[in-house]
């Protein structure tokens, strides 16, 4: 039995095959193509060719892809939608999508705020204005809208109004109408959660097309026994159906997959992962085997959202970073020769001094290009450039730490040859085998998860009981999502007090994950 993992990145599409012991059997890298789909097909072809396994033995196939991010950034293939907020008279002071770019905002054909919503403690703010909802969905139907975003105030505390309104939408718009309920997508903070829900609603066609495309390309290559999964940005997998329901959760699955892949390859559960590409380096934190979540609002295509995203910092440093001598000393990046590195870098016969040339000259990467072409470079200058790279990485690693204790570092990605193996504040630098395709490996070895989030007053529910409830609910959710119950573990639990607020109210959050059946 084998698993096939594919990760579509900005520059490269990587593919791996792992066996049932999760050992890497084959791995390849191919350029990401304009239409992405062709690149995926190429990757599948190549990785199958480079191994001689029985295709019928591939039982699971995982895809991590940038389709959704691209669609938002390029405003392509976005579906017309309706946006309905359950909140009035609360929130009428803030119109939905008020600070969106107009070319993106026009995806919403009908936007309305109607009666509904809850208080922070679950009391009803207002009942859902059923008549207004019916009228709204009828207007949507006149526009041919087949996807609606429904956002209720404190929907993260109670979701029943969103669920009921969703049913009403499908009664009027048809059972195939795509539903995006805010309680399933974002966390506390109405506007950010609403934004994420709207983006999710407009991405449904994109998700339909890449999920179908992936299945089709597998069939074309005679991989017919594989269950298909898609990477989401918390380092776990979704089924095809869930992906179609929540396409937005695929955004930023790339960095997440490299963090998970790095964890698997290095056998570390807690470390900082440094993924060096051609142009940028992503630094993320591995906590209990999963990426740490970002605690601040994240902007996608200019829209502020709050759905969960990995806490990753990107710096303008990569194998293709351009090295310059200036009045103020040596600089490295942030600009890069990017994918043209094999033409422009000195070691490949080009005329641009890059970080890779520095690494080759100093003997860090002896097998890259032609070392003779950089022999003339001044040793001291190269040492200075390496020092610049070292300090840049050290500073950002430090910013990702949670304490001053030295940490383990896992170096992955094709560009990681430029990073020296001695770094300050670091216990040990690990550079595992197959480091170049850690992201596709991350996709192949992923688990499935469940989450719980609610505001709880510790005066009413003691802290221990609240945390227990959170754990139980997260585990239940993970099993519902397809995890084998015995393998499910709590991977994250936290409680944060609400500021400027009496009543000892805390936001309690838990996440669980387990192996796929």
């Amino acid at each position, binding site marked *: 039995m084998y698993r096939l993992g594919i990760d579509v990145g900005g520059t490269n599409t990587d593919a791996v095959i792992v066996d049932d012991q999760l050992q890497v059997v084959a791995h390849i890298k191919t350029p990401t193509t304009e239409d992405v789909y062709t690149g995926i097909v190429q990757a599948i072809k190549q990785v199958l060719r480079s191994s001689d396994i029985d295709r019928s033995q591939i039982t699971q196939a995982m895809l991590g892809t940038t389709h959704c991010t691209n669609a938002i950034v390029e405003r392509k293939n976005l579906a017309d939608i309706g946006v309905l907020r359950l909140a009035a008279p609360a929130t009428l002071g803030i119109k939905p999508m008020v600070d969106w770019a107009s070319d993106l905002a026009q995806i919403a054909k009908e936007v309305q705020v109607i009666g509904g919503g809850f208080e922070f403690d679950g009391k009803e*703010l207002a009942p859902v204005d059923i008549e207004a909802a019916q009228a709204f969905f009828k207007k949507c139907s006149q526009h041919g809208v087949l996807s609606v975003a429904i956002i209720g105030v404190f929907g993260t505390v109670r979701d029943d109004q969103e669920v009921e309104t969703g049913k009403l939408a499908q009664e009027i718009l048809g059972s195939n109408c795509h539903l995006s309920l805010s309680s399933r997508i974002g966390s506390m903070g109405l506007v950010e959660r609403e934004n994420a829900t709207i983006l999710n609603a407009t991405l449904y066609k994109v998700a339909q097309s890449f999920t179908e495309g992936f299945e089709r390309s597998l069939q074309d290559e005679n991989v017919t026994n594989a269950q298909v999964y898609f990477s989401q940005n918390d380092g776990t997998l979704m089924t095809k159906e869930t992906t179609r329901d929540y396409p937005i959760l695929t955004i930023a699955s790339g960095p997440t997959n490299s963090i998970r892949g790095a964890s698997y390859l290095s056998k570390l559960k807690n470390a900082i992962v440094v993924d060096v590409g051609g142009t940028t380096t992503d630094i993320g934190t591995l906590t209990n085997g999963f990426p740490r979540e970002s*605690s601040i609002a994240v902007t996608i295509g200019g829209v502020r959202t709050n759905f969960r995203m990995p806490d990753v910092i990107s710096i303008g440093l990569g194998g293709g970073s351009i090295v310059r001598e200036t009045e103020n000393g040596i600089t490295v990046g942030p600009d890069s020769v990017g994918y043209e590195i094999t033409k422009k870098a000195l070691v490949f016969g080009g005329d641009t001094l890059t970080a890779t040339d520095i690494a080759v000259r100093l003997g860090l990467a002896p097998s890259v290009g032609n070392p003779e072409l950089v022999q003339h470079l001044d040793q001291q200058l190269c040492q200075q450039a390496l020092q610049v790279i070292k300090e840049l990485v050290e500073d950002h690693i*430090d910013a990702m730490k949670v304490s001053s204790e030295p940490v383990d570092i896992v170096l992955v990605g094709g560009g990681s040859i430029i990073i020296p193996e001695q770094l300050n504040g670091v216990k040990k630098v690990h550079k595992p085998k197959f480091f170049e395709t850690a992201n596709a490996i991350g996709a192949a070895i992923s688990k499935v998860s469940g989450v719980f989030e609610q505001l709880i007053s510790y005066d009413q529910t003691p802290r221990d009981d609240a945390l227990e409830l959170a754990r139980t609910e997260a585990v239940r959710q993970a099993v519902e999502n397809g995890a084998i119950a015995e393998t499910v573990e709590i991977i994250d639990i936290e409680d944060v007090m609400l500021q400027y607020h009496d009543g000892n109210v805390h936001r309690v959050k838990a996440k669980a994950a387990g192996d796929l059946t």
Partner: protein
Amino acid sequence: MRKIGIDQLEDIALGASLLGAGGGGDPYIGRLMALGAIQDHGPVTMLDPEEVPDDAFIVPIAMMGAPTVLAEKGMMGDEFRVLVDMISKYYGKEVYGVMPIEAGGVNSMLPFVAAARLGLPLIDVDGMGRAFPELQMVTYTIGGVKSTPMALCDEKGNSTIINTVTNKWTENLARALTMEMGGSTSVILYAMDGKTMKEYGVKNIVTRSEQLGKAIRTIKEGRGTPQENFLEVAEGIKLFKGKIVDVLREVKGAFNIGKVVFDGINEYKGQSAFVQFQNENLACTVEGKILATVPDLICLVDTETFIPIPTDQLKYGKRVLVVGLQCYPSWRSEVGIEIVGPRYFGIETDYIPLEERAQNV
């Protein structure tokens, strides 16, 4: 008199996060409401305090409660009309204009919502020159202005006016009402005439906020280094530059109390410092020596972007410039120190102005 449109509003919001001195709540949700109100009703007219007649009736506009709740259960938008009508009827006076009570954080933005929606001018003045956690902590208290009659309104349309015997009672009653009304309310308090406003208010604080916001936005365009430009415009005194090595928090009542510890970087390498906070930053101690306390503003900004960092976003590894800004002069009076000096917040030291402390370093 000048007009405040969307561009100016963005700068004011950014400046307000600096004047929050670590607290006051993220201005984001307020900014969105103001943005929508200006889009619908056009730019807001802002008056210099000197343009306001002595007998004009002016009302401060604010929210009370948890900014986190406001960020989920935003306003209906009509709260300010309800409040203004109610207070106007109660006093038997037409409202001439609105003003912020707190220039820092989310409360900096709400008066713009009221001004745009009601077509009233906004006065370039506030009662703090920054953000503070309790409602008696305004310069008007120094002038003996009463906080009540105070009008409260929730997003459901419930409203009330309360009268109290002391400002401390106002704080207690208003907070209890706010909790019962669902965790956040819109309020008018410290209604006053133009003369009182001119005598005790922190004048031109909105303009200052705009200048600060613009300076942060265009920090890379100035003549000097970004840090020099920032300190020059902020008229700030550099207190420390360091990396956060620890954040200690505890919870008392509705307040987030704690201490953030730094190890020096660059010119401060080898030194250590800490800042104590209660929602807002209270005191900065470098190498065991106190360099600044409330009511002076202690602001933590990112060393690269100069974006202010609120106390609830402090975390290990962040590189921070700690800057002291002088508070409004009347806070430095005896009464002022009694209301918002270091001892009120449990810091056992006399108040010494920031610039004097700096000279003795």
